[in-house]
Every structure is written in C-alpha cells, then in structure tokens.
C-alpha cells in the first residue's frame, strides 16, 4: 500500500477537520466527539475502526451494562465461583480440584444471513471462549428458535443451521448433549442460534486474558486473517435487516473446524507446559478486541506491528485487519524465555504463529504499519470505557390487555376422547414433537464421557474417566411466558433449567444466560429487557446460583416488530457419582409413578393455548422458587439414595406430555389414575411449575414417600408402569397405544424436511 493512503497519527494531527465515516460505522455524533476528546485529536482511520467495533452494542453492552450490574450486586454468597463475570467465561469449582467453565452466546444475525456458516461459527466462537480459560472443551449444546415449522424461510434456515452446528461441532469432536428447539412466527425473519460450550480443567489451571510483563511477546496464532466478517460485530449485530440505505451487509465469517480442532489441541499442549502469561481468543471485533482487552487487563501497554499479521488476502488495509472476524485465531502473551517452546508446540500442530508485538508499560496501545504509527490510544478507553446508555423504558401499551384476556373462556376438551385427541395433537405440535431429526445429526458419543444426552432433561458429562464426578447442563427459555410477564418469564426459564438439572440427580451450581431481545431503542423492548434481567437476578439470588457470564443480543426484529422476548437460561449442576444419574425413561415393570408438586388451573402462555387456539394471554404459571428448591432437594436425594429410577420435569404440555415422553423413551406403558378430585383437563395439561414425575420401585415406596412427607413436598401416586401393555392409559378417560403416540410425536419434523 502506498503510504500516501495511510492515515497515520502524524497525518491525523495535521488534518483535524478531515471528515470521517463514523456514522457509517455505527457511531453516534457524541460517541465520535468523545473519541476525539480521549485522543486530543481526530482518530486515525485505524483508531476509528477500533473504537467503532469496541463501542458497538455487541462488544460494549452499552444499552445493557447498567442493568446487568444486578447480576453482581444481587449475587448470592457462594464459594464455588473461581472466576466471575467479565472474563471470557465464568469458572466454577466442582470439587476434588476440578473446575468447569461454561457459557452461552448468540449468533443470531449471521445465522439468518447464511445459516450454515452463521451457526457453525457460533459454535466455533463459544468453544474458543471456553478454551481461552485454560479448559478442554468437553461438550456443546444449542438453543434454537425458528419461525413457524411450515414457513418457507424456516425450510431455508433450519436445515442450514442444523448442518452448520453438526458440521462444525462434529468435526471438533465435541459431543452435543442437549439444547432446545422452538418455533414461533416472531422468529420468522430473525432466528435465534444460541450456542453453549462447557469445558473442564484443574482448578489451578485457569488462564486469564491479560498482557502482563513489559518485554513479553504478543503472539498471534491460528488461522490467517482474511476479509471475512469485516464489520460484522458493529454492523451486523447493531442494525436490523430491514434498514434501507447505506448499511453495508458484510459477509458472514466462514468457519474451518479442522483449524479449530488443531488449535484446541495446540493450546492444551501449550497450557499443560505453562507457556503463556495471558491468552485471548479473537471473536467479535477480532484484533481490535484482543489487543485492547489484553492490554487493558495487564500492565497497560502494547506495541504491535500490524503488518506482521499473517494474511489470507494481502490487499487488506490495516483498518480491515483490525476489524476482520476471521475465525480460529488466538492471541497469547509469552515470556521471551518460553517463546521457543511455544513456537515448537505450534510447529508440531502446523499452527501458524507470529510474534506481532511486545507488552509495554506505556499505558498506550500503539500500532505501526510498515514503520508508520497508525494507532496510539489508551486501551482501557476502547475496551472498558465505552458509552453507557440509560435507554428509555416504557411498559408496552398492550401489556394489561394481554394479561386481562386470559383465555379462560376458550373451549376445553370435555371428555376422554377429546382429551385423547388433545394429547396426540400436542405431542405432534412443532414445539413438543420429537427433535431427533435434528439431534441425530450431532455426535453425542465422542470423547466417551456422555452419560446423558438429548432428549433427557439435562445433558450429563463425566469430567474424566479417572473420576465418577460429572456435570449436568440444561438450557431453557419460554418466550410466550416472557411476553406475558418478562420478570416471571426469566424466572420460569431459570426454574425450568434448574429443575431439569436436578431431575438428573445433579445439584445446580451456577447460571449462564443469553438474553435475546428486540431493539433497545424501543422503550417497550427495553422494559421487557430490564424486567427480565431483574427477574433473573432476583431468581438467582433466591436459588443461590450465581450468574457466571452470558451474552446480550439486541436488535432481534423484523422491521419494527421485535421477536418475543427470549431469555435463554443455562444452569450447570454437579453430581458426585454419575452412575447414580436419573434418566427420563420409564423402565421398571410395576414401578409406581408419583407426581410431585401442586397442579393449579394455569394455562396462560401454555402450549395448549397456543396449539389448540392459536392464543396468547393471561398470566404465566406462578413462580415458586422455594418450592423449586425443595423439589430439587428431593430429586437429588432420591437419586443419591437410589429411591427412584426415572424422573422427568413437567413443563410445556404439562403432565400429559411428560408421561408421553417417559413412556416413549423407555418403550414402557403406564396406567394412570388421576386424583379423584382433579379436573382431568387441568391435571393433564396445566403448566404449573415446580413439578416432576418420578417412578419409584415398589421396594422404595415407603422410604420415598416418607421423605416427601417429612420435607412437606406434595406428592400423589398417579400410576404404575407396565412393560407388557404398551399403552398410555388414563383410567376412566382414554388409552393410546404407544405406537400411535410415537407416530404422532416423531413424524412432525421429518415430514417437513424429508
């Protein structure tokens, strides 16, 4: 490049009035003015690139940060948190010197533009976050939302997203052990792809993203930098698709899972030999983010020769190199003493590694391009001191009407045959139907530590073959509940994930979250967001499970219409002995089926309301976190003491759907006798929370019921498992052969895509 085109620091000082395209890069007038104030001059174009991406909503959390503080302020007292929020991912102590790190992150917009690559690089990005903490990634899961199952664009987006997750995750050798898939019109132009990864390490092996020690070397390693995803962070994540005019729609990043697999093994070998001072992955905002964050967290300064960065496309300008979101790249800080050993490990794995800079104590991030100074800024100003907005908040005008019209007069099934039809219709509905067409495209066996995988209540992974210790993970989110009451909706998602983890026998320990909402510039969306954050923070405080990290995704909307507010909550639990895990399937002939918890007439936001009447109104089921804790205690103790041999939480579709799933999972029939005083419809389809069904071997019945009685958990014996008669029978109401039920449940999704 001719140096005449290069915007150097010297040039910037000489030409203070040169117009700059900050608005096109998504910066507001006052944000640009603030950059000028920080620098005492106009930024160079390279500096403008850095600030524009670092101060984007995606990287700076400028609309959410003021609210997310609650997760720290209300954090419950806990001694399990080794690394809290703010790092690449939180780290949880799971005992015996083991630590686990986990996080969920969105890749929504890229997955709409280019479903395969968008979803694939979503997996790649979250895996690198986990790797960066010093952990071996050991499992992934995905929380997905699409438009209506039969919508034409769903047929474009879903197969691509699923193939992308499979293509990338399978090639990394990470088992996919859970997640969720939901369909709703509101996601038709804006699918949600939230990817979660969990990693395992020894507690003394934690790595942090900081550039300490003047004179230490800054090494860029992994894939070469290309032109993919340029501007992705600031433009893709901050503007909606419908906006007209000059918004550039940059290419989505392209993933190379093989490069990432090799990078994982290379990094783990580097960690094992203790060769790095600090490490950071390159994700959104690429080199801009890695350099400013590493420098800001460390001694405070860094000198970088940007022209040394290995390129895939030699014509890239320095601004583009700084903004590129090319995948499978990492940056490490290495002492001169360890540099040769570091480079030798990279060479062993054929990973390109290049020293591009040095740590300094100047307090400045300085970059040169062929010897000329093009960046000279205080790194904290870009990484941590971006704008913070208190966006206007207003309760949506239709919120009261939505709650008031609660659908109590919607016609309900009146007899056994109508109840039977409702069961089959719900089981075959898109949200409750069998998802194995999707999940059978994911490898769940690799690594040999998968104890439970989808469709179990939670995924469970043994930490290592040397131990019986394991972790369980579940993600949940119910957007219709959240639309009706965002405070309760976030807590309901938390409660369900918590309950799912406990159903497998694991004790819930910590929380991650991915908050998917519309535009923060819409006051009613901002109301939904702030209510959900408050609900989640309060809920975590009561349940004693801290938020360890997460991700906010705004601007999920089509035109002016936002998606349903969708907080997706991930809960991680620990189990001492994975051989004690409780599966979902009915499997023991003659075992007794117990329903735990209380059932009320609660149909606001229910699957029945949605499927049978296309209706949404009323209040979501009441939240009772104390009850959730009690139920979890019972489920965990019963698992540990061998009192139950199956457990399944009750959620969408209520008792009927849970019974259907446990029957189908085990290929076992059940005879159900509903409590005498119960309204059969309410008993079968209400979505009251804090409930689960368990099967209890007859030999353990007294011990189990004694425990429930002592702890004052309501319980009711509702049936018996019958391995010989493959029917789901509700006495006095109806009976369905499992063959018919399975056919209804399992043919919905394949019928759309085969």
């Amino acid at each position, binding site marked *: 490049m001719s140096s005449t085109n290069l915007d150097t620091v010297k040039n910037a000082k000489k030409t203070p009035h040169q117009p700059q395209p900050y608005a096109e890069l998504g910066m507001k007038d006052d944000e640009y003015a603030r950059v000028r104030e920080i620098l005492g001059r106009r930024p160079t174009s390279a500096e403008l690139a850095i600030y524009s991406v670092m101060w984007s909503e995606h990287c700076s959390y400028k609309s959410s940060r003021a609210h997310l503080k609650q997760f720290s302020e209300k954090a419950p007292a806990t001694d399990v948190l080794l690394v809290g929020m703010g790092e690449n991912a939180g780290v949880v102590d799971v005992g015996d010197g083991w630590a686990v790190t986990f996080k969920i992150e969105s890749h929504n917009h890229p997955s709409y533009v280019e479903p395969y690559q968008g979803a694939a690089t979503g997996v790649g990005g979250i895996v690198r976050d986990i790797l960066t903490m010093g952990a071996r990634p050991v499992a992934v899961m995905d929380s997905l939302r699409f438009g209506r199952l039969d919508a034409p664009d769903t047929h474009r987006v879903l197969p691509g997203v699923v*193939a992308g997750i*499979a*293509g990338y995750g*399978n*090639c*990394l*050798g990470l088992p996919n052990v859970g997640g969720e898939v939901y369909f709703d019109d509101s996601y038709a132009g804006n699918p949600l792809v939230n990817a979660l990864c969990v990693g395992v390490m020894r507690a003394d092996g934690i790595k942090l993203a900081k550039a300490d020690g003047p004179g230490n070397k800054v090494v860029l390693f992994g894939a070469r930098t290309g032109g993919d995803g340029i501007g992705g962070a600031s433009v893709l994540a901050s503007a909606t698709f419908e906006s007209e005019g000059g918004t550039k729609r940059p290419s989505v990043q392209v993933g*190379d*899972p*093989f*490069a990432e*697999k*090799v990078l994982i*093994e290379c990094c783990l070998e580097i960690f094992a030999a203790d060769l790095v001072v600090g490490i950071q992955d390159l994700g959104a905002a690429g080199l801009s983010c890695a350099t400013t964050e590493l420098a800001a967290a460390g001694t405070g300064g860094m000198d970088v020769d940007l022209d040394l960065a290995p390129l895939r496309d030699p014509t890239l300008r320095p601004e583009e190199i700084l903004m590129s979101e090319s995948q499978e790249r990492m940056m490490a800080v290495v002492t001169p003493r360890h540099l040769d050993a570091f480079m030798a490990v990279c060479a062993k*794995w*054929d990973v390109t590694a290049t020293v591009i800079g040095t740590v300094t104590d100047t307090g400045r991030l300085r970059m040169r391009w062929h010897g000329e100074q093009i960046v000279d800024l205080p790194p904290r100003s870009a990484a941590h001191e971006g704008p913070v907005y208190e966006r206007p908040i207003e309760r949506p005008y239709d919120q009261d009407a939505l709650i008031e019209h609660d659908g109590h007069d919607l016609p309900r099934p009146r007899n056994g045959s109508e109840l039977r039809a409702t069961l089959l219709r719900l089981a075959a509905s898109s949200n409750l139907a069998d998802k194995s067409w999707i999940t*059978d*495209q*994911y*490898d*769940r*066996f*690799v*690594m*040999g*530590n*998968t*104890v439970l995988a989808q469709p179990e209540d939670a995924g469970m992974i*043994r930490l290592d*073959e040397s131990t019986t210790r394991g972790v369980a993970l579940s993600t949940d989110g119910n957007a219709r509940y959240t639309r009706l009451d965002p405070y309760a909706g976030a807590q309901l998602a938390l409660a369900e994930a918590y309950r799912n983890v406990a159903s497998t026998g694991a004790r819930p320990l910590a929380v991650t979250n991915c908050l998917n909402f519309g535009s923060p510039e819409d006051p009613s969306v901002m109301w939904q967001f702030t209510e959900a954050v408050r609900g989640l923070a309060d809920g975590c405080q009561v349940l004693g499970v801290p938020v360890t990290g997460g991700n906010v995704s705004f601007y999920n909307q089509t035109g002016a219409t936002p998606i349903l507010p969708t907080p997706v909550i991930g809960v991680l639990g620990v189990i001492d002995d*994975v*051989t004690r895990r409780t599966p979902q399937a009915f499997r023991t002939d003659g075992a007794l089926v117990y329903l735990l918890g209380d059932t009320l007439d609660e149909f606001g936001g229910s699957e029945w309301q949605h499927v049978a009447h296309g209706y949404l109104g009323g209040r979501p089921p009441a939240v009772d976190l104390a009850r959730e804790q009690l139920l979890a205690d019972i489920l965990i103790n019963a698992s540990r003491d061998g009192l139950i041999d199956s457990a399944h939480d009750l959620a969408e579709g209520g008792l009927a759907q849970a019974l259907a799933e446990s029957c189908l999972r085990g290929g076992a029939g059940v005879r159900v006798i509903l409590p005498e005083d119960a309204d059969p419809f309410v008993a079968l389809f209400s979505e009251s929370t804090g409930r689960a069904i368990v099967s209890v071997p007859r030999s353990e019945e007294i011990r189990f019921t004694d425990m429930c009685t002592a702890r004052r958990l309501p319980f009711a014996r509702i049936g018996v498992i019958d391995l010989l008669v493959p029917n789901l029978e509700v006495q006095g109401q109806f009976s369905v052969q499992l063959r018919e039920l399975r056919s209804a449940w399992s043919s919905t999704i394949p019928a759309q895509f085969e």
Partner: protein
Amino acid sequence: MSVRVGVVTFPGSLDDRDAARAVRIAGAESVSLWHGDPSLHDVDAVVLPGGFSYGDYLRCGAIARFAPVMEAVVAAAADGLPVLGICNGFQVLCESHLLPGALIRNDHRKFVCKEQALRIENTSTRWTSEYRESQEIVIPIKNGEGGYVADERTLDELEANGRVVARYVDGNPNGSYRDIAGICNEAGNVVGLMPHPEHAVEALTGPGTDGLGFFLSLAGVAAA
C-alpha cells in the same frame, strides 16, 4: 505381557482417546502413534480411529493415506499386523488400498448419529473372534460419509470369501451397498468398520458394551 495396541493420531482425529480407552478396558496396553512418525514402536496391532483427518476437505482419508505413519502401517499389514480402521480409519484403509471399495456421502445427505444394530458375519478375523457367528450387537454409528460402495464384482467377491465382517440390520443408516458395515482383507488381519465399537465399551456412556469384543479379540495376538 499384555498386547500393545497402537492408536494413530492424525491432525483432526477425534476418537483416538476413546479407542485408547477401549484398548485399556479390554486389558491391553495402548500406545499413541503420531501421524508424522514413521515408527510403529513395536506394537502388536494398530487402530486407525474416527474423526476428520486433515479436515477431510478433499476426500475422506485421502490425505491421511500419505502420512508417514501409514507407510509403516501398510507394510506391517502386509506382514499380518492386525489393523482396525473405524469410520475415518475405514476411509483411510480404503484410500490406502488395504481394503477395496470406497465410502461416500450418506444417501440421505445428512450426518447421522444413532445406536445401530449390526450382525457379525465373520468371526474368524483378528478383530471379531470374541463374537458368535451371526451375533447381533448394538453400537453407535456416526458419520457423514459412511455409504460403502464397490463394483458388483468386488461385492460378490467379498461375499463369496466371507469378507463382509458386519452388516447393518433393522435399517441401513447410510445407503451402504448390501448393508455392509464392515469388511476385511483376504488374510483377515485388516478390518474396516463404519460404526464405532470404541463408543460401546462402558454401559455408562454407550448403548452397552457390545463393542468391547473387537478389542478383546486381540487377546493372544502378542503371543501369536
């Protein structure tokens, strides 16, 4: 002295640690072999594990075939060394011409991961002697390009000489000709198998322990 079984790691191998674990659970000693090292380190048998060697961006196994370690494997296989290629390893064996035929994209064009029933058709190979003739087993299958194809004459030869080691039952998961899940060479020391026995060696983490027989079959190999 226990049997020493080498497990090769190519860049992009995924099931190498699973294969090593299976070897250990079967009572043998596992030895890591590196793709760039032409020595087999005096092992008594070799497993080429599943995964995506070198990314498999060309044809599956097409680049792994040229790894230095494969020269040694091909030579030793000719001398009777037991070699088991699982999934990607099967693809590498076909690309190396240790086994006939090829593995192509699944007929339904999706990756498939499920518990799969197989019938063991040949129990006289070095890797299947622990099984009963026609024994049905269930082990995981997981592949994107697992459709076994060969010309009619090759298929007839394989059938005639008992070289179809395992066949899919209760449904063909990938469009393999004649439901073939695994084959062996004429001598029976080289076996290629698309499903994954190494993922069925512990009841806790697999569909059962039906896969263990492949690794237990090696007992006595060192003495032989």
